[in-house]
C-alpha cells in the first residue's frame, strides 16, 4: 500500500482527504503511483503532469523521506519506507505567487 499526500487544491479537486492510499500490482515508482492515482481520480489527469509529455508540472514537486525526487527518473524505485507504507509520497505545490 502506497500513501500519497496531495496539495490542498488537488484534494479539493479529487474530493479526498489529506492522504490517499493506493495498491500497486507492480513496482512502485513515481510513474506507477501517479498512473494509479489518475486511474482512480481521473480529474487529476493533467493536474500533476502534462497530458501528453508526461512531464511533471513545473510548480509541483515530489518529496519522500526528506528527499526531493522531482528530478529523478520517474521509473526509479521509490524509497523502501514509501513502498512499505511507512512514509508517504508527498506531492507539493511550490510556494509561488500570491
Amino acid at each position, binding site marked *: 500500500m502506497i500513501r500519497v499526500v496531495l496539495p*490542498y487544491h488537488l484534494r479539493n479537486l479529487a474530493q479526498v482527504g489529506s492522504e490517499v492510499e493506493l495498491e500497486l500490482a507492480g513496482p512502485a515508482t513515481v510513474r506507477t503511483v501517479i498512473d494509479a492515482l489518475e486511474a482512480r481520480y481521473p480529474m487529476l*489527469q493533467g493536474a500533476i503532469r502534462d497530458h*501528453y509529455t508526461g512531464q511533471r*508540472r513545473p510548480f*509541483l514537486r515530489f518529496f519522500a523521506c526528506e528527499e526531493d525526487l522531482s528530478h529523478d527518473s520517474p521509473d526509479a524505485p521509490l524509497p523502501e519506507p514509501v513502498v512499505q507504507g511507512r512514509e508517504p509520497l508527498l506531492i507539493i505545490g511550490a510556494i509561488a505567487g500570491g
Partner: protein
Amino acid sequence: MSSVRLLVGTHKGAFILTSDGKRKDWKVEGPFFGGWEIYHLKGSPVDPNRIYASQTSGWFGQTIQRSNDGGATWAPVGNKFAYQGTPGTHQWYDGTPHPWEFKRVWHLEPSLADPDTVFAGVEDAALFKSTDGGASWSELAGLRGHGSGPHWMPGAGGMCLHTIILDPQDPGRIYIAISAAGAFRTDDAGQTWKPINKGLKSNTIPAQEAEVGHCVHHVAMHRDRPGVLFMQKHWDIMRSDNAGESWNEVSGNLPTDFGFVIDVHAHEPDTLYVVPITSDSLHYPPEGKLRVYRSKTGGNEWEPLTKGLPQGDCYVNVLRDAMSVDSLDQCGVYFGTTGGQVYASADAGDNWAPIVRDLPAVLSVEAQTLA
C-alpha cells in the same frame, strides 16, 4: 416571476449572485473552487441550469467544471485540449518563433441550440468545441491554419482567444477575437476563417492597418442584428455594419477610448456600454471616477453614467469579460472590477449600486435571465 443569476469569475474562485426581477436584494453564494482562477462561467441559453466554468491554475493546469443544476453542484469534465496536428509556431514577444502551447481557457460559449455543445477560446489562441457536455474537446483548426498564425503574437495578458460570438440567425457563422491578432469570422461552422480587421488602425504595430496584429479587447453584438458588431480595441471603439468586412471608429466624445469591456442593451441594438480606462499605461478610470458611458446612437455620442458609482479615488479596472446585461423588460446592466466590486443597474445604466464590494479581482460576469 423572472429572476436574474450572475455568474462571477474571479482570481480566487467563482461566485453566484441571485435576485428576483426587482434586482434590489441579492444573495451571494461562493466561493466555488476557492483559490483557483475562474476565468469564465456561462450557462446554456437552451438550458440555463447547465453551466460551464473554466477553472485554472498556474500550478495545476486547466479544469473544466460543469453544473447541471444551476450551480448548486459541480463536477469536473474533460480537460484535454490538444492542438490538431503539428501545432507550429507563433511570434514570441521578441519576434522569434515560439511553439503553440496550451495554457488555459479564457472563454466558454455554449451553443445556442444544444446544451451539450460548447466552444472554448484558449491561450495560446485557438478555438475548441465539445459536443458531449465538455467531456472531450476538438480543435477547430482552420482558424490557426488559415495562414496568418505564424505572425500572431501575445499581448501583455497572453495570446488569448477571448471572444466567441455565435450568430443566432446563421449557425455556420462564428466571430472570434484574439489578443493580439485581431478578429476573425467563419461562415462554415469553423472549417475556414478570414481576418476581419479592415479599418482597424493600431499604432502599436509596424503597419498600422495590417491584416492581423491588432489588440482587440472585446466584441459585442445584438442578437436581433447579427451583422452589426461593436468592438473595444486596445484603443478605439469600432463599429461594423457588414459582419466585420470593414470597421469605422465611433469613439466620439469619450474621455478616452482605451478600455476592455463593451456590451449592447438587450432590447435596443444601438444602445452600447463601455467603461473608459485612462490608457494602456494607466489601467484605471480617468480622474479616479468610475464611469460607464452609454451611447444610444450606436456610437459617437456618449453620456457618462455615474449615479451610484464612485466618483473619486477609484483606481480599479474592468476586464474584458466582466460586463453583461440581462433581458428583463427594463434591461439590467452589470459589471465587475479588479477591486472586487460587482455593480448592478436595474434601469439600463441610469442608476447603479454595488451588489458586493469585496470579492477577489473580478475576471468575468455573465447574467442569466431566468423565467
